[in-house]
């Protein structure tokens, strides 16, 4: 009984610890003072206005959004055929190919970022949108792959074969049968991919410049010298966006992953 109570206390304290910084940042973004105050001293949305009036923030928002959208789109286009190949065919080197595609999940992003800068300098691509894009595709593709692969089951295969037996060609079958079956995986994997690209600092920082900047990198460079409510306002926007995406994911596929599965 005492152990149970202790676990409850530690768990609730841990939850508070997880929520505290996010609440504090969102709160300070509403302060009327020109320094960070929590609880906020008066309520105002003026710091969000300051952001909208600053072209460098607006352009960083545009870059980040375009980058995340493009990286997600390219990674879906690459991950879907890759997962079909991995699910359908037994071939020599299959395990190797699978670990190649999944390895960016565990790679230190600093190392990959440095590699892309060095490689980009060699082929004249360094510090460009393309250099950022290829790096982001590499790190987000595993998310799509991991969400699509489990959906390519034998049952799914049977429907696909039925379609082919009825005379549909592979292309028609893919768009009319396979794609609707794996759409859920593409959407949830795509959302994870979008977010991972949107929040990345370590990889992007090597290939950004003063004029080509993403939101997280801009924030990183800014926070090291100045701390003011505008940075809290940018942060608040990203926190609210993250919360919305997760609630969306929860509604789409149900995030109740920690309920017990073997209770008799």
């Amino acid at each position, binding site marked *: 009984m005492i*152990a*149970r109570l202790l*676990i409850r206390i*530690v*768990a*609730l304290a*841990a*939850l508070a*610890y*997880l929520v505290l*910084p*996010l609440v*504090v940042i969102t709160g300070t973004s509403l302060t009327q003072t020109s320094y*960070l105050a*929590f609880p906020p001293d008066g309520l105002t949305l003026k710091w969000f206005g300051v952001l909208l009036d600053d072209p460098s923030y607006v352009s960083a928002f545009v870059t980040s959004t375009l980058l995340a959208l493009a990286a997600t789109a390219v990674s879906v286009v*690459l991950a879907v*055929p*890759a997962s*079909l*190949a991995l699910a359908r*065919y037994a071939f020599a080197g299959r395990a190797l*190919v699978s670990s*190649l595609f999944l390895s*960016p999940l*565990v790679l*230190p992003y*600093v*190392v990959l970022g*440095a590699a*892309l800068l*060095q490689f*980009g300098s060699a082929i004249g691509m360094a510090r460009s949108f393309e250099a950022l894009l290829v790096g982001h*595709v*590499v790190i987000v*593709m595993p998310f799509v792959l991991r969400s699509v692969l489990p959906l390519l089951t034998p049952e799914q295969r049977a429907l696909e074969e039925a379609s082919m037996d009825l005379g549909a060609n592979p292309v028609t079958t893919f768009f009319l049968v396979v794609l609707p079956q794996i759409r859920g995986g593409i959407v949830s994997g795509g959302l994870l991919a979008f977010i991972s690209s949107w*929040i990345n*600092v*370590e990889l992007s920082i*090597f290939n950004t410049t003063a004029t080509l900047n993403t939101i*997280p990198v801009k*924030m*990183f460079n800014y*926070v090291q010298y100045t701390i003011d409510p505008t*940075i*809290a306002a940018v*942060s608040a926007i*990203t*926190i609210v966006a*993250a919360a919305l*995406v*997760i*609630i969306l994911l*929860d509604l789409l596929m149900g995030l*109740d*992953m*920690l*309920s*017990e*599965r*073997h209770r008799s």
Partner: protein
Amino acid sequence: MAASRTALALLLFAPLAFFAAFFLAPMAVVAISSVTTDGDTLTFAHYARILLDEYHWDVLWVTFRIALMTTLICMLVGFPLAWYLVRIVRWRTWRRICVILVIVPLFTSNIVRSFGWMVLLGRTGLVNQALMTLGLTERPIRFLGTETGILIGLVYILVPFVVLAVGNALATIDNSYEEASADLGVGPARTFWFVTLPLCLPGAVSGAIIVFALAVSAYVTPALLSGGQITVFSMLIFQQYSSVFDFHYGAALSITLLVLTLVLVGIAGRIGDAGRRAA
């Protein structure tokens, strides 16, 4: 057979070509430049420099110490939270809310989360205000620029991984083992130590190793919370590429960090597999 080979080649061509060009080739460039000089002669001098320089040993030691402490504290905080979510919470909606609260930080940039702690841990921040109000300290404690500050930030960033790994392990334990233990008259504490803990240990250990690997390679959090006072390994890499411009030496540092991480992740994978086979 020939048709299926063609199909396989068609499916794999684009993803493999992309990964070869923008993942394997850049990594190969780094690997090669880590063992060459500007004149393209083979040398291991860059690695020797890492091994022989006392400063690097200091940085490595600090990095490891922080990563190890981070992992330990993550387990101490994450294990009870996972247990609470899987075993104690009975109200589904509350558990759903809790899971969302655990995941939202994961979906928020490291920079935003570290910035939150910069604000909270400052001289006049909420943490110092609370400590002084409670009378636990008379003067504000200095957190920023200390290892304690970095620890608080890193644990914050990495604890969700432990909760998810341990929570998944706990959720998949077949409770008939624990019932059998209870039926045989074993008390709850002994059942926990000798039945439940060993069953979820593989999940917990592989979660811990992932956390350790991520803590060793962390850059943003230590960079912001150290205030320039403490250097960790990934900062050395960044310095070489952004201000010193010694790409060869930076490459050697990168490869060192990469190999270290891959070895850790490999061990974690082995333990995870062994656990799945045993379960």
